[in-house]
């Protein structure tokens, strides 16, 4: 089965899609594709077959999203916790990933035609080297495509991602690119694996479980959460429509909460800058009390400097991450 499923919606689906599209639509939807194993058990098939069908459903869901003008999708493919499963199953999942990423490289022309950019979020170091190289190749091949985006969370947990962001910031401090006082909510967000994506508007979990299981905890703090009882391989267009309807019903209140949060965040940054400036003036002000105008100028100067530091640091971080993928890829070529 391929990554891209061609085909139009049927008439009824098209009408429903158009009705939904008359309202606010999510720009980014995240899925916890739960229920593959339960589906396999229910249908008396091999576990691996359940995972296979789950992948096929992903291709189908991407097609629906395309018709619904949803340009970005993030999926939870493999959690760090999943390494605890039996060796058999983990090996099977790694093999499935290998096949799918190989397939992806075969389909590169089609992916280019549709403008699909594929990113893999997680700690690749935890994976077998050949899979790392394959993933790096797939990511590099599609990285300039910009019509739709598929983020695959692989060897991922949200706590690990947040911790990794903190580690990157500490690295920036070690390299004297930023100061510890530059650490802020916005900067932490920029250091996450997901830094290239807007936060998801809608998070869908299937199979009736009602928890986040360490998925996108930071990014979904103002997303609409929809828990659906259907098993992932049985997910239908109508399930997706129902989730979008939920999003539309929640849209106004969540937007309001987001605005409030954004205001709060800006205020927090201003206060942090003020505190840094006050400290600076105290040390270098020769004991003279600073007047309001001088303080204001100092604040502006400080903010500009901080923003520049942060910009340079993020550039360096991006370079570091890019070269990780490039190195993996060239290793694979020379091997």
């Amino acid at each position, binding site marked *: 089965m391929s990554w891209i499923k061609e085909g139009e919606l049927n008439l009824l689906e098209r009408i429903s899609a158009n*009705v*939904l599209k008359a309202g606010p639509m999510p720009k980014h939807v995240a899925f916890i594709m739960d229920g593959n194993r339960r589906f396999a058990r229910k249908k008396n098939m091999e576990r691996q077959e359940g995972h296979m069908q789950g992948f096929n459903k992903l291709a189908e869901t991407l097609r629906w999203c395309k018709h619904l003008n949803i340009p970005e999708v993030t999926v939870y493919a493999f959690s760090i916790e999943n390494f605890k499963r039996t060796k058999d199953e983990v090996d099977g999942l790694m093999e499935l990933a290998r096949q799918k990423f190989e397939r992806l490289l075969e389909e590169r022309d089609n992916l280019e035609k549709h403008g699909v950019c594929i990113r893999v979020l997680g700690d690749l170091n935890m994976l077998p080297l050949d899979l790392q190289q394959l993933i790096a190749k797939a990511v590099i091949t599609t990285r300039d495509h910009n019509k739709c985006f598929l983020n695959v969370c692989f060897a991922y947990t949200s706590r690990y991602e947040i911790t990794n962001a903190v580690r990157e910031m500490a690295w920036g401090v070690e390299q004297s690119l930023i100061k510890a*006082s530059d650490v802020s909510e916005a900067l932490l967000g920029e250091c996450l694996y997901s830094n290239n994506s807007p936060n998801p508007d809608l998070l869908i979990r299937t199979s009736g479980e009602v928890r986040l299981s360490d998925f996108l905890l930071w990014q979904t703090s103002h997303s609409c959460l929809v828990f659906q009882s259907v098993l992932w391989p049985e997910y239908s267009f109508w399930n997706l429509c129902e989730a979008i309807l939920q999003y539309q019903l929640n849209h106004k209140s969540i937007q309001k909460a987001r605005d409030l949060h954004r205001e709060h965040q800006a205020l927090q940054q201003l206060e942090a800058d003020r505190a840094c400036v006050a400290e600076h003036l105290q040390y270098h002000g020769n004991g003279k009390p600073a007047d309001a105008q001088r303080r204001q100028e100092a604040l502006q100067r400080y903010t500009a400097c901080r923003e520049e530091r942060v910009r340079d640091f993020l550039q360096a971080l991006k370079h570091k991450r890019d070269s990780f993928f490039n190195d993996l890829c060239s290793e694979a070529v020379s091997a």
Partner: protein
Amino acid sequence: MEALTAPLYAFLWRLLHLLLHVHTALLSWLRPRLPSPTSRLWERAVAALTVPGAATGFPGHQKTLGLLGGDPTEARRSRWLADGQALEKLPVHIGLLVAEEEHSYTDLANLVVWCMAVGISYVSVYDNQGFFRKNNSRLLEEIVRQQQELLGVDGSRYGVDFLSSSINSYQNKVVSCRPTLKVLCPADGKQSIVQAAQQLCRSVENKQSSSKDISVSSLDVLLRESKNIPDPELVLKLGPVNSTLGFLPWHIRLSEFISLPSHRNLAYEELLAALQRYSCCQQRLGQ
């Protein structure tokens, strides 16, 4: 063609949403008016169904119930405690996430008192506007009042440790038998993660540690120290908005989310039903 169909679709969309709003309004109007399943018989039946043997499992409690039938607050207290014990599992920490605009001190205080009465040790209350944090003395007053009203004057047994997140309370560990209430606001969420990150980066800045030393557990320790509380196993979302609205992002990793339509006019039976639902949840922890 497009020019013709676009307004039609927009009209259909409006109609659909109008119908959905009418539906929700009707449900919320009906909720307090429907005959609530208050009878003890029904409750016992549910308890017996969800936990086989529960009805016979606590003969002692039934005896106390019978003995103390004369004192309504005492009877209520043992009944609630028995309800909690009849569940297969009870969260140690419950998060009450208020996701609606209108607030009611009395109803929320009721809910907090019920949670403590069934045997939950930590209760946190959150709303994304920081409303209850701003007015936390008012909420505390209401809780104390409800405690006396619902559980009798014996307030000492259900004393409330009122924590503000900026203050680290060490005494809290000592009096561990008392339920603890925490009133949280958005600053306790991402902002507290940022503070922990700053702390770690400062120690790197001062050359006391290296960036490689930072791990999930070192961050978790910092975030736990300031809270003194286990992660909430259950988050009760009260209100129509389906979002965590910034509620403790680090700590809700494995929390089960159960929604109730509102905290206003909430009946005890609705809380019990939610707890029963929680007690049936199984976690596989990645396996």
